[in-house]
């Protein structure tokens, strides 16, 4: 198949950062902050973050913050939610501009979403999902404010979502799903609780995600999809079982999903591209140490140099 078309993907990402007026782009407006994280992290992994001016991005991000609660909405004027709050922190981290934040205010917002049973709500309306547990733990860890939550209970709740097949769902008893598994494993990794996982059992479930075409699916009987190259792969890495899948075949699958003419990566070969799959394709290749890419941290989903800067700079 060949190579990762870095220049093409960079052009593609930069082009979608600009506002577009077609309906399909309009109905993504509410998650622009997530989109910013996917696009900018992909650029950074490809050593192309210099193509973006930090000041404009930082100003826009800060204007997405809800002044009352301290949380961030998906775009300016949108209600705050934990998902967008993490994206805001992650993007600011990439630009080394966490100083723009009132850390206490943001961390209070996130910590305030923890419930009695240790779970996290997404926002004031109370929806519970293990994704939000990961988001909260990742966010607070990056802000050095994990002490604001009850970590033990948070871990206990995550573990209560473990199924007999070793995987994790959204809520206790929910179907195991690679995306949810990444969130649970990532949260347990960050809180030093990986001993609560049966690594062989989970590793088994995860390596069964690899299909004949080399790609990974997210659940049994589903089609392969590039985004699982991230979620399954990083989970396997965190539990030290990545040698259980064939990485060469996976790389080839990801590279096959590129649109070499227009740039971008799609969910599977010959489908339409989007920034979400472009990010996860690049991130997956980075995990497999594809030459020319920055290394990505499996738990924080940020370039390792960004994470090191946060944890090791005095």
């Amino acid at each position, binding site marked *: 198949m060949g190579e990762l078309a870095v220049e093409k993907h960079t052009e593609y990402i930069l082009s979608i950062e600009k506002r577009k007026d077609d309906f399909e782009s309009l*109905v993504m407006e509410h998650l622009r902050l997530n989109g910013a994280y996917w696009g900018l992290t992909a650029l950074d992994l490809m050593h192309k973050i210099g193509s973006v001016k930090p000041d404009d991005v930082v100003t826009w991000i800060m204007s997405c913050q809800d002044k009352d609660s301290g949380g961030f909405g998906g775009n300016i004027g949108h*209600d705050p939610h934990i998902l967008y709050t993490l994206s805001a922190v992650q993007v600011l981290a990439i630009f080394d501009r966490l100083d723009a934040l009132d850390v206490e205010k943001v961390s209070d917002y996130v910590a305030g979403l923890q419930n009695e049973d240790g779970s996290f709500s997404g926002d004031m309306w109370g929806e519970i999902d293990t994704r939000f547990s990961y988001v909260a733990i990742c966010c607070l860890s990056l802000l050095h404010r994990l002490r604001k939550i009850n970590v033990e209970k948070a871990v206990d709740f995550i573990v209560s979502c473990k199924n007999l*097949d070793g995987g994790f769902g959204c809520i206790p008893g929910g179907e195991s799903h690679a995306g949810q598994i990444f969130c649970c494993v990532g949260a347990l990794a960050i809180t030093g609780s990986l001993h609560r996982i049966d690594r062989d059992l989970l590793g*088994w479930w995860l390596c069964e995600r690899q299909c004949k075409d080399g790609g990974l699916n997210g*659940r049994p009987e589903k089609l392969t999809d590039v985004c699982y190259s991230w979620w399954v792969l990083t989970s396997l890495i965190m539990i030290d079982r990545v040698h259980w899948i*064939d990485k060469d075949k996976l790389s080839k699958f990801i590279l096959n999903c590129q649109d070499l003419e227009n740039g971008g990566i799609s969910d599977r070969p010959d489908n339409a591209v989007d920034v979400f799959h472009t990010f996860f394709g690049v991130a997956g290749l980075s995990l497999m140490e594809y030459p020319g890419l920055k290394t990505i941290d499996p738990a924080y989903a940020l370039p390792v140099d960004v994470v090191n800067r946060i944890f090791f700079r005095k």
Partner: protein
Amino acid sequence: MEESDDLLLQLEQILENDEQLDEIGFIHPTQFATLDTNSDSHSLQFNTHFFWNKDHKLAISFEVLSPLYRAAVQKHSCARRNYKPIVRSCSKEGSEEFLGSEIDLLRHSKALVVLSPNFPTAWNSRKLILSNHHDLTLFLNELQLSTLILSYSPKSECAWSHRRWIIKLIAKRFQNLEAIIRNESELVKKICEKFKMNYRAWNHWCWLVSYMTTQQVLDELSKLRKWAELHVADNSCFHFRRRLLVRVLQNNSTGKAEDTSFNEESHTCSFLEGELEWNELLIRRYVGREALWIHRRFLSHCWINKFANDSKLNMFLDREMQLVKTCLVSSPDEFNDILAQAYLAAAYFLWLSKLQAAPQIRYEIHGRLREAGDVTSLLVKISPEKTLFWQSMGI
């Protein structure tokens, strides 16, 4: 083209007028010509090049989606700024009055979620208003709105979580959920029929289990059998069965006397064995289906850990060996399904051998595994990309 505000008004009037709307589609302008003429009984004035409304169906032309969306965002934003929540006491029966600001916000947020089902702020606006009302009809209408959105946007996370918020509210204030649970089950089944393995739909159903009585759980298990037989590749369906079975097994172990006809261990055991028998039937009939073998892993795991004793274990393992042996073939040149079946059978047995169980049980299983031949080599042959995995799992 008309002003987008005017277009929005037309859309909102249709939405308000047709209370039983059950389907919405965004279609190409050229497709409008193929639709029947609008219902004659329409008293509304709207541009029939852009909107079509008949038999509780609504079509909107692609041409006007962007201007409609922009107008809806702007109007919603304005209405949201003007809205100040008021707290109502819940002493009065019957319908409650709405403030003008509430009516505006409800109208514009509805248009916005129709156009952009995953626009969280619009759904939140509705929650803000509903939080200060106590009329059950309102909440049921809200479920209806979510159903409408899910009919064309079945993965909409916002629509699903909005349902849960409403149900939690109803549970808190009105208590009787049985009818609602039944309706939710019907809705999820309908959606899962149309959109296979929709994770959000099945997750919603799993969420509902904690609100079900034991009898409802048993009824679901029984009703879902037929459906499962027609969808043997639907792993989500079988996972849902597992969720229900876990509930049954939990009830038994905690001795909940909610429903006295089902809290005896022997009943639960034969229930599980019935499910194992049924699963075996399907495995033999539908060759090479992963979802069926995964279901069997769970069933065996439960049976072994809860009901195995010396005499029963031998019979159990005899039967599993029998099943596995008939599925194993030695040549990877066979047809795909047969090969898949061999692979799945071998993986199943290897998985069994790894079960966390009492030492004597594991010893028995390991012994049987050796009888089955070189399972590891077979797995490596069929699935070489996982060679390292099979080798580290092999006995």
